């Protein structure tokens, strides 16, 4: 690279923006925004669940509770103290990592929350892996063979799939793959991997595939369109004219640039995936965070609702920050000067 030295001085050259330095430079700011957002989210969660008129004690006990029971629970939850006091105590407990006790189960929230979170993460990661690999594979294939039969089939089926809610496809999966038609997989539940690989993975495949379907179509579609765009670009033409074989052109030159919009799409829909996990866990009776949230809502377990939603929001926010930083590593144009 003989011209590297002169380029380094050029104002347009971005080569000297080292990823690590760039990240270190923006990290404090991003972290500050993240903490501020988390703080505001905690205010929102707290105000919806605890301050709104007809407070938590009332919501927990329901419409027909006796005055005494409500009063007793109010004191137990500290609802008789001023709002600010309540909020500070509530937040301080979370910051300390003390998630209080569940009203219904009567046990500390943290251990059960962490255990369920672990299960959900396994499910989420598997689904994410499926979405990314399959989605990019299909997208690239359709992008290369634009307007072929395969491309049209994928796009029509993709469009239909993404209109089917998770609980519908999940229930149909149970009907077809865990019941009368083929009994390949168990219909639900979860066991740890220590119980054996097949019992573990067989209970994950159906829920993960259900989660995959909706996003898969988007990922494939996005990868396809950016692949088509990139394949039309000048540098791909240059690479082809240089005499590189097609496989190398696609894998080394085109794919890397085509993946940026896909990465954005995946990042933007992380929240969708989380919502999907709630539904899928309910369909497959999977003991994860989502089902914990749903049962907490059914049982009006306010501390549990607060804890689960706060944890989910924290995960969502940190995932967004992580993706932001990842962009900077992947694409120098996103690095600050």
């Amino acid at each position, binding site marked *: 690279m003989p011209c590297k030295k002169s380029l380094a001085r050029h104002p347009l050259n971005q080569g000297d923006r080292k990823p690590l330095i760039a990240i270190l430079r923006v990290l404090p700011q991003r972290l500050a925004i993240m903490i*501020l*957002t*988390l703080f*505001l*989210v905690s*205010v*929102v*969660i707290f105000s*919806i*669940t605890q301050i*709104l*008129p*007809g407070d938590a004690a*009332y*919501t927990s006990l*329901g*419409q027909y509770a006796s005055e005494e029971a409500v009063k007793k629970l109010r004191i137990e939850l500290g609802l008789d103290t001023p709002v600010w006091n309540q909020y500070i105590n509530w937040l301080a407990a979370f910051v300390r990592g003390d998630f209080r006790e569940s009203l219904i189960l009567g046990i500390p929230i943290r251990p059960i929350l962490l255990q369920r979170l672990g299960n959900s993460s396994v499910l989420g990661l598997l689904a994410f892996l499926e979405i990314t690999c399959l989605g990019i594979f299909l997208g690239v294939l359709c992008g290369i063979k634009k307007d072929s039969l395969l491309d049209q089939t994928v796009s029509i089926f993709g*469009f*239909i799939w*993404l*209109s*089917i*809610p*998770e*609980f*519908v496809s999940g*229930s*149909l999966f*149970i*009907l077809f793959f865990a*019941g*009368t038609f083929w009994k390949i997989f168990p219909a639900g539940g979860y066991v740890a991997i220590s119980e054996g690989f097949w019992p573990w993975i067989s209970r994950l495949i159906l829920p993960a595939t259900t989660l995959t379907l*909706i*996003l898969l179509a*988007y990922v494939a*579609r*996005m990868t396809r369109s950016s692949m088509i765009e990139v394949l039309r670009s000048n540098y791909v033409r240059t690479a082809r004219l240089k005499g590189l074989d097609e496989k190398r052109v696609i894998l080394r030159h085109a794919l890397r640039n085509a993946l940026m*919009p896909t990465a954005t*799409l995946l990042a*933007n*829909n992380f*929240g*969708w995936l*989380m*919502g999907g996990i*709630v*539904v899928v866990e*309910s*369909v497959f009776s999977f003991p994860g965070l989502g089902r914990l*949230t*749903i049962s*907490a*809502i*059914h049982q*009006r377990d306010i501390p549990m*609702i607060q804890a689960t*939603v706060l944890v*989910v*929001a924290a995960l*969502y926010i940190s995932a967004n920050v992580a993706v932001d930083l990842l962009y900077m590593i992947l694409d120098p144009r996103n690095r600050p000067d």
Partner: protein
Amino acid sequence: MIHKANTMNLLYTALKKIGLFSFKSYQLLLLNKKFLVGLVLVLSVIAIAIISPLIVPYNPIEFNISKRFQPPSTTHWFGTDNYGRDILSRVLMGAPITLLLGISSVAITLAISVPFGLFTGFWGGRIDEVLMRVNDTFIAIPSLFMALLLISMRSTLELYLKIPTTWWFDPYPVIVIGVTMIPRATRVIRSATIGLKNEEYVHACKARGETASYIVFREILPNIWSTIIVEGGIRIAYAIIMGSTLAFLGLGASPPAPAWGLMIYEAKAYLYLSPWSLIFPSLALSLMIVSFNCFGDGLRDILDPRSRRSILVE
């Protein structure tokens, strides 16, 4: 310009009068295959929803224990469920309920997010910054969780809003879904407003000394109609998904309402015994969502071709 006074022409002139379309000919509208398919599907769904209460063969909520779990036959086309209710009647009655849920929650969303987005975008500065930070806070909670959080406070809402609930329609999930979608819709409206803020006609208006609400509603609003229509069109499908999901989770419509999400939840318990009670509501729900997705996607391709926003609106 318009030679023949047929319905499409009339529709086009009417739409053009209120400033909906910026392109030259209504033919463009018909060229988009996806929009056309979507339009036909949506119109048929609406037609079915309107006539279905008149053509239901049986009472959709009447129990008939002697006829439980009957497979599809000539008397009960879609079979019967665990209480012996006719599934065809329930699926048909589900159509207006689901449609009403989708449209009214989107109406709530737009009624609040349009003025909100317009004004914050127009004012800019500190107020905008603060309001948008608050708005982003709500976006930082995944929408299903936001909806769950709000619906978990249902008893409080009931205590203060006191909206009557009928057996077939429950307004609280609609309110919750409408509110959940506000922050994301506001962002879209706001950025459309900011895009127009520095146009000359807006400056001219300011120089004339018009009030903010005049400029916002008379000058900016007519120019972002297409954005609003696209936003609403795309969100109907999303609202339907969310509403039926809440019903499936046991937090939306309550029995004996023939809401499709609830029917699927009830059918899941008897999955192997009567698969038809699962399959038919699933088909109906998916068909309705496909129609609105197709319609919204096509609408976006025509009215807002630059945006690459996917119809997934999380």
